[in-house]
């Protein structure tokens, strides 16, 4: 493929330019994928070097350090205490004490159980006196996995703190050698609202994220490699254990399983994924263009009562979705208002199958989503449309552009440039749009073939609602939900990565400042 220079490219005809761009794009894909691998390799190399540097630094600190530093390798914070930084020293010491106590009292046990996820499950025991059977609960796989993960987090935190402790000793020696004074506890406290203020501000949010997002995600990723479900809940029914890649093999297997199913997991997953992508595409772009259209209609010169029109639409954002969506779902029902109205008018004889027929249901969902989404998009686009410098339009009109040309040559490129990142997040957001689907249809109508593979799968089910359904009921195949969750992540990440590299508006954020 010949590569044109910029000026040569300008000479091409319109069609050739388009063709050239397309071929360039597809030719660049292998290179981009290669680029990802190169980046990964570089990252690994960087990490390896960083570890090496750290190790070397730790070693040299030990060799060259004074006795206070050397003791600090064993007793954290000793150096701080010996050099008069009481507050820091005590904190280090306290942390080390807590860590050792925890590891001895509990952490060790959890770590030792982690490889097996529990050895003794619940047992039936016979009570001779009462002449009944009773159950003795023993190991708890769930807790083992949970506290095992927590312990690993804790160990990592300890290693990091230990490293900080050593680095501080090195710094302290250097500062004292240069004849300056070390920071006192009071200085440290003061810097927490000044130059170190970001640490204060972020400590609470990051702790929350760590405990309530990172930890659960790590846990759920691990669950995908176990057989945790309703029948193996790890305590009351049965223990669960590691199963390796089995769940992924099941999910991505195209062979039809035995046991009465007519469709493989992979096929079911593929079907749901296809609809999810289709839905995300339509939901994003119908809203985007229609929302922009409404915004332009309201913005148009000479239209009065602009505020009223906007308020009517904005009001619908305020009403909780569970009310509006549930109500709309009933409006479209067989005996709902819409069918009732159409029949009363005599336009139809039989109720329209809004929710009963797969295609009807899918279209109705998309249309209802337009109703939900337009007010929001109208707001977003209004702001941006008003930001387009009006002299651009004036100059275009003088150059002889009609309204449609003004739209395609000025408005649209500008909008796409500015809202590019928003469109991306909106697309991935729609892929995970639980509310609209679940409250409108609950996934209905049921897809019998797909359902034979895993639980109830409907034609309007997205991956996310399917995932939710899998975790419900007695079967509760958590391991399967985890696998689906991981796959959703992979799909979203891939799309984001590709689009992110194509978007023109992804620039250094500092450009905006």
């Amino acid at each position, binding site marked *: 493929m010949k590569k044109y220079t910029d000026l040569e490219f300008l000479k091409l005809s319109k069609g050739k330019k388009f063709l050239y761009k397309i071929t360039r794009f597809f030719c660049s894909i292998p290179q981009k994928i290669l680029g990802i691998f190169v980046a990964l390799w570089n990252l690994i190399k960087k990490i390896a070097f960083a570890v090496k540097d750290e190790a070397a630094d730790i070693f040299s600190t030990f060799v060259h350090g004074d006795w206070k530093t050397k003791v600090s390798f064993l007793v954290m914070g000793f150096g701080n205490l010996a050099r008069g930084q009481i507050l820091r020293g005590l904190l280090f010491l306290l942390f080390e004490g807590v860590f050792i106590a925890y590891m001895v009292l509990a952490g060790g046990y959890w770590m030792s159980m982690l490889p097996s996820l529990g050895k003794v499950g619940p047992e039936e025991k016979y009570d001779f006196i009462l002449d009944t059977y009773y159950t003795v609960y023993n190991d708890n796989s769930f807790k083992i996995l*949970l506290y095992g993960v927590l312990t690993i987090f804790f160990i990592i935190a300890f290693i990091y703190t230990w490293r900080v402790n050593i680095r501080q000793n090195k710094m302290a020696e250097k500062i004292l050698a240069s004849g300056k004074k070390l920071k006192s506890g009071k200085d440290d406290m003061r810097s927490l*609202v000044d*130059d170190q*203020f*970001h640490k204060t501000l*972020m400590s609470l*949010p990051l702790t*929350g994220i760590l405990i*309530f*997002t*990172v930890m659960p995600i790590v*846990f*759920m990723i691990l669950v995908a490699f176990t057989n945790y479900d309703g029948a193996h809940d790890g305590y009351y029914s049965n223990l669960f254990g590691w199963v390796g890649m089995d769940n992924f093999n099941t999910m991505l297997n195209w062979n039809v399983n035995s046991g009465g199913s007519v469709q493989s997991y992979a096929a079911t997953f593929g079907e749901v994924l296809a609809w999810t992508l289709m839905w995300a595409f339509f939901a994003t772009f119908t809203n985007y263009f229609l929302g922009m259209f*409404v915004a332009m*209609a309201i913005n*148009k010169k000479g*239209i009065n009562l602009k505020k009223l029109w906007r*308020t*009517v*639409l*904005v009001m619908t*954002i*305020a*009403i*909780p979705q*569970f*009310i*509006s969506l*549930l*109500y*709309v779902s*009933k409006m479209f029902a067989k005996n709902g*208002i819409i*069918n009732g109205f159409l029949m009363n008018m005599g336009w139809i004889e039989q109720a329209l199958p809004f929710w009963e027929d797969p295609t009807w249901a899918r279209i109705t969902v998309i249309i209802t989503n337009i*109703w939900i989404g337009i*007010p929001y998009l109208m*707001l*977003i686009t*209004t*702001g*941006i449309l008003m930001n387009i410098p009006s002299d651009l339009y004036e100059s275009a009109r003088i150059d002889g552009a009609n309204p449609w040309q003004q739209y395609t040559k000025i408005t649209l490129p500008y909008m796409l440039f*500015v*809202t*590019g990142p*928003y469109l991306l997040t909106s697309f*991935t957001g729609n892929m*995970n749009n*639980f*509310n609209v689907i679940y409250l409108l249809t609950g996934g209905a109508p049921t897809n019998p073939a797909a359902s034979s593979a895993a639980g109830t799968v409907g034609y309007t089910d997205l991956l*996310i609602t399917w995932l*939710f359904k899998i*975790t419900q009921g007695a079967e509760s195949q958590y391991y399967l*939900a985890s696998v689906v969750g991981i796959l*959703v992540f992979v799909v*979203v*990440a891939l799309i*984001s990565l590709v689009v992110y590299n194509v978007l023109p508006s992804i620039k250094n*954020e500092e450009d*905006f*400042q």
Partner: protein
Amino acid sequence: MSENNVTAPVKRHMGLKTSRALSNTAIYALLICISVIWLIPFVCILLQSFRVELKGPVGYVLPKQWGFDNYIALFKTDFPRWYVNTFVSALITAVLQTIIVLCMSYTLSRFRFKMRKPLMRFMLILGMFPGMLTMIILYRVLSDLGLTQENAVPGLILVYIASSGMGYYVSKGFFDTIPKSLDEAARVDGATRFQVLKKIILPLSKPIVIYTILTAFMGPWGDYVFAQYISFGTSSGMNVAVGMYRWLNHDQISSSYTMFCAGGVLVAIPVTALFLCLQKYYVEGVTGGAVKG
């Protein structure tokens, strides 16, 4: 200049005027249509909440018999309890979440520390995991702590606010528009970073603070998924969404449909009123957020 040249533009002008009037009429018609379509469901809910004669879904809109029966019936159910649950969790979440989001976004907008970019990238990646997945484990953990079912409200608040630090985008975008030289001037003037936040940034960020409070309040007010998980079948721990959802199940819809409408009206009115009062700030937040991405 010949006479033709003089008259031609005048004619053209007339044409412009009529075509503009025509297109404006079309747009008015369209806007009226849109307004009607957008308002119909809400009008229907309102009307049907006053229907007395039948409690199930029907194919007509105007009640044949009007009355407050449905509203009275609401108070014989657990609805007041759900309402209080929802209100309390929404209010507390609004306050705490706003504080967390502002801390996070101010930090990421104003401080340049080594881990800043990796941290932002990490949170972006975290956000790609379906949040629902974490509910499975959070439910088990909260249940061990006794924060589910009838004690769902504190548990729910914890879930709502815990990860709210990840929702920093919009307010960070806003903070980014406040010139950094203001911070610098204040710091040269003798302010600590904390004083910069308190005396300079926050007073200038009223719209975004209100936007954050509003969205933080509206989230729990209409949440279904998390509340459904945490309250899990215990009526006294439910919020309005979970409680009222059941009224539309197959077995209850014929007796509770109009009650759902009445409940919907009671849930929607306060938040809509609040929303319309603060519309200006909401719009500002939404537009700013989209531009910043």
